[in-house]
C-alpha cells in the first residue's frame, strides 16, 4: 500500500470507529493521534506515520468531511510551533510525555519569546535562567503572549550565559505555566481587547529534563519554532477569494451607493494580489520536496500581512462615515473567535498588528534579501560582543 492509501485508510478507520460528531472532542483527537494522523510526517507512536508532510492535507480533508474538529484552532501554538520543536529538539521520552495532551487540546501551549526590550532583535532578550542543582531558576518579563492565562506549557527562550555573544548564550525550555513564580496579566491593545498577555517570571523553576536542545543552543531551536510560526501565520486560504478579501467584496456588494470607479479599481487590484499570493502558496506547497517549511513562508507572511492592512483600509474608505464609529471598547478576552473576527472597524484596527507580529515586515524583507536572494547582511554593532556589553534600552 502506498503512503497516500495508508493515510486515507487510517483516517477513514478513525472517523468510522469514533464518529467525531458524537464522541467528545478530546477522546476523538486521542484516537486521531494514536492512528498517527495528527502530524502524518511525525514518527509512528508520536502522532505520525513517518510519511510526507504533504499527505496531511488528505487526512485533514477526511477529518473535515466527517465533521471533525480542527485541532489547530483548539491549540494554535501547540500545533503550529510547539509540536515540531519538541519533536526535533526534545528527547523521545519528553515527546511521549508532552505530545499526546498537546494533540488533544488538553494542554494548551503558549510561547514566551518577546520581551519589552527584545522585539525584532529577539536574540538580545534578557530573561535569565541560572542552573541550581538539576533545576533552572528563571527571572524576567515576557510580552505578547497569546493564550498565556489558559496555557499549561510555554516555549521559553532565556539567557543562560550573558558573557557570550547574544545568539550563543540562549537556551530553550519547556515551562510549566502552573509553576510558582509564573504570573500572567492581560495586555490591552488598541482594539480595546486583550488578546495577549504579559508574563512575569520570578524565581520560576524548570527541571533540566524540560530543556530542548543543548545549553547555549537555544537560538537554533527557536528557529524551528519561528519557521513554523511564519508558515502558520502566512499560510493563507487555498480557496479563491476567501479570507480578508472576502470581507471587502461583500461590503462592496452591500454599499452600492458608495461605488466609484477608483474604489472599483482599488478592489480589483487587491483581489488580484490576493489571488496571486494564493497561487504562490499553492505553487510552494506543490513543489515542496522537503518536509519542513522554508523561506516561502516568509513571502507569504509579508504579503498577507500587508494585503490584510490594505484590504481593511479599503473597507474603511468604502463604508465612509461609518468608518468613524466603533462598537465596544470594553476590555474583553479576544480569544473567542467571534470577538477576534468582530466588526470591520475592529478588523481594521487589528490588522495594524499584522506587519509587526510574528516578524515585522522590515525583518521579513531582510530575510528575503539575505536568505533567498543571498544579499550581504547589514552591519551589526553587537556582532561578536558579549551580550552584557551591548547597549540596551
Amino acid at each position, binding site marked *: 500500500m502506498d503512503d497516500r492509501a495508508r493515510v486515507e485508510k487510517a483516517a477513514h478507520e478513525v472517523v468510522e470507529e469514533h464518529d467525531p460528531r458524537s464522541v467528545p472532542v478530546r477522546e476523538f483527537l486521542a484516537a486521531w493521534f494514536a492512528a498517527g494522523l495528527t502530524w502524518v510526517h511525525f514518527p509512528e507512536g508520536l502522532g505520525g506515520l513517518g510519511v510526507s508532510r504533504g499527505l496531511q492535507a488528505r487526512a485533514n480533508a477526511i477529518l473535515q468531511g466527517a465533521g471533525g474538529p480542527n485541532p489547530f484552532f483548539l491549540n494554535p501554538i501547540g500545533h503550529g510551533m510547539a509540536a515540531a520543536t519538541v519533536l526535533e529538539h526534545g528527547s523521545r521520552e519528553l515527546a511521549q510525555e508532552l505530545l499526546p495532551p498537546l494533540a488533544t487540546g488538553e494542554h494548551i501551549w503558549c510561547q514566551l519569546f518577546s520581551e519589552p526590550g527584545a522585539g525584532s532583535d529577539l536574540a538580545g532578550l534578557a530573561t535569565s535562567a541560572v542552573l541550581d542543582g538539576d533545576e533552572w531558576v528563571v527571572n524576567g518579563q515576557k510580552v505578547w503572549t497569546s493564550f498565556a492565562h489558559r496555557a499549561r506549557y510555554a516555549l521559553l527562550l532565556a539567557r543562560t550565559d550573558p558573557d557570550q555573544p547574544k545568539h550563543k548564550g540562549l537556551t530553550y525550555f519547556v515551562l510549566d505555566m502552573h509553576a510558582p513564580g509564573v504570573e500572567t496579566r492581560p495586555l490591552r491593545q488598541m482594539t480595546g481587547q486583550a488578546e495577549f498577555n504579559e508574563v512575569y517570571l520570578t524565581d520560576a523553576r524548570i527541571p533540566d529534563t524540560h530543556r530542548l536542545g543543548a545549553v547555549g543552543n537555544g537560538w537554533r531551536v527557536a528557529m524551528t519554532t519561528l519557521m513554523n510560526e511564519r508558515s502558520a501565520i502566512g499560510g493563507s486560504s487555498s480557496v479563491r*477569494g476567501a479570507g480578508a478579501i*472576502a*470581507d471587502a*467584496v*461583500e*461590503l*462592496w*456588494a*452591500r454599499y452600492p451607493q458608495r461605488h466609484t470607479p477608483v474604489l*472599483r*479599481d482599488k*478592489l*480589483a*487590484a487587491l*483581489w*488580484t*494580489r490576493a*489571488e*496571486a*499570493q494564493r*497561487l*504562490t502558496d*499553492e*505553487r510552494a506547497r*506543490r*513543489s515542496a520536496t522537503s518536509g519542513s517549511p522554508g523561506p516561502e513562508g516568509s*513571502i507569504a507572511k*509579508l*504579503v498577507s500581512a500587508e494585503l490584510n492592512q490594505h484590504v481593511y483600509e479599503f473597507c474603511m474608505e468604502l*463604508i465612509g462615515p*461609518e468608518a468613524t*464609529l*466603533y*462598537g465596544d471598547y470594553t476590555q474583553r478576552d479576544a480569544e473567542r473567535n467571534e470577538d477576534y473576527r*468582530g*466588526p*470591520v*472597524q*475592529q*478588523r481594521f484596527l487589528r490588522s495594524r498588528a499584522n506587519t509587526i507580529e510574528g516578524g515585522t515586515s*522590515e525583518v*521579513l*524583507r*531582510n530575510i*528575503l*534579501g*539575505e536568505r*533567498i*536572494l*543571498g*544579499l*550581504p*547582511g*547589514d*552591519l551589526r554593532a553587537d556582532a561578536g560582543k558579549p551580550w552584557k556589553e551591548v547597549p540596551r534600552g
Partner: protein
Amino acid sequence: MADAVTEFVLTPEQQDLRRAVRRFCAERLGEDTVRRLAESGTGHDPALWARLGGELGVLGLAVPEELGGAGGGLVDQAVVAEEFGAALVPGPVLGTVGLAVPALVALAGAGLDEDLLASLVEGARTAAFAVPDRGGRFDPALVTVTETGGALTGEVRHVVDGTADVLLVAARTGEEIGLFLTDGGERIPLSTLDRTRRQATVRFSATPARALAVGAGAEQAITAALRVGGALLAAEQVGGAQRMLDRTVAYAGTRLQFGRPIGSFQAVKHRCADMLVLVEHARSTAFHAAWALQDGTDDPDLAVAVAQATCSQAYQQVAQESVQLHGGIGFTWEHAAHLYLKRAVTDAALLGSAAEHRERIAQLVLDGASASGGVRVATG
C-alpha cells in the same frame, strides 16, 4: 485533465527543455546579438529563427503532431516563452508563436492550410496577427478592414511583427467577421520603443486574401489566440523580470559604496525583496494561466486576466527598480537595463494593459458579488 497536484510542477522533460533553450540563447542569442539585431533593418535574423524552429524545435510545442507540431501542451511553450523573455529574443515571437500559430491550431480542420502551419512551426516562414483587440479581448466593433470578392481593403495599426511573411487578418465580410490569410498588403514599419519587438501598420487595397473561417468559427479562433497569446506574453514577462532581478541582486552584492556592498543597505535590500515578491507572484499567475488553458482547470478568461494584470505590472516595476538600483550605469545605453525596461513597457501595453485586465477581473468577480457574508459594520 491534469491532476491538480501536478499544476506548478515542471516535468523532467520540461526542465530539460528549459535548460536547452537557455543554453541556446546564451550561446547564440547573447546581448551582443540582441543589440545587433535590434539595430538592424528588420529587427530579426531569419536564419536564427529557422534554427529555433528546426534545430531546437521550440516554436510549435503546443501544436498537435498531425498539424506538424510537437504535440505537447501550452505549459511547454510557456517554459520557452519565459526563456525567450529572459534573453530578449528578437523576432516574431509574439506575432507568430503567441498569436498566429494558436489561431491556426484553433482553426484545425476548418480548411486549414497545414503546410503553412508546419512552415511556421519550423521557422521557415513567419506570421502576424492583424486583429485589433480591446484590453486583450476581441471586439468586433474595432474591425474596420472589409472583404469583398476575395480581396481586403482597409488599415490595421500597431500590428506586432507586421512585416511577417503572412498575415492573419480580421475583416468584415457582409454582416459577419471573417479571418483571412494574405501575404500581401503594404507594410509600413513603425519606429518602436522596444527595437527587439517590431510593429507595422498594414494597409490593404483590394489585396487578395483567402478566407480561413467566417462567423462564429473565426471569432472563436481569435478569442483562443488572444488567450494563448496573453498567457505566453505573461510567461515572457516572468522571464524578463527574473533576469532583471538576478542581475540587480548580483550587482547589489558586488557594487561597493561607503566601503560596503550596496545590497547590505536595507534601503536597497528591501527593494530587492519587493522585486522578489513581484517575480514570484508573476510566475504563479503566468503558469497558472498556461495550465488553466492547457487542462481546462480554471475559467480561462479570469486566469489570463489575473496573469496579465499581475505580470504587466510586475515586469515594468522590476525593470524600473533595476534601473534605479544600478544607479548611473543603469541609465546608460551600454547597460542592458533599458533593453528590458523597453520590453517591459511594450509587453505591459500589448494585449491589454494591467488596468484593462483589472477591469475585466472586476466584471468577473465584483459585479456579481452578493452581500451574503457575515462581516459586521459597527454602527455606533
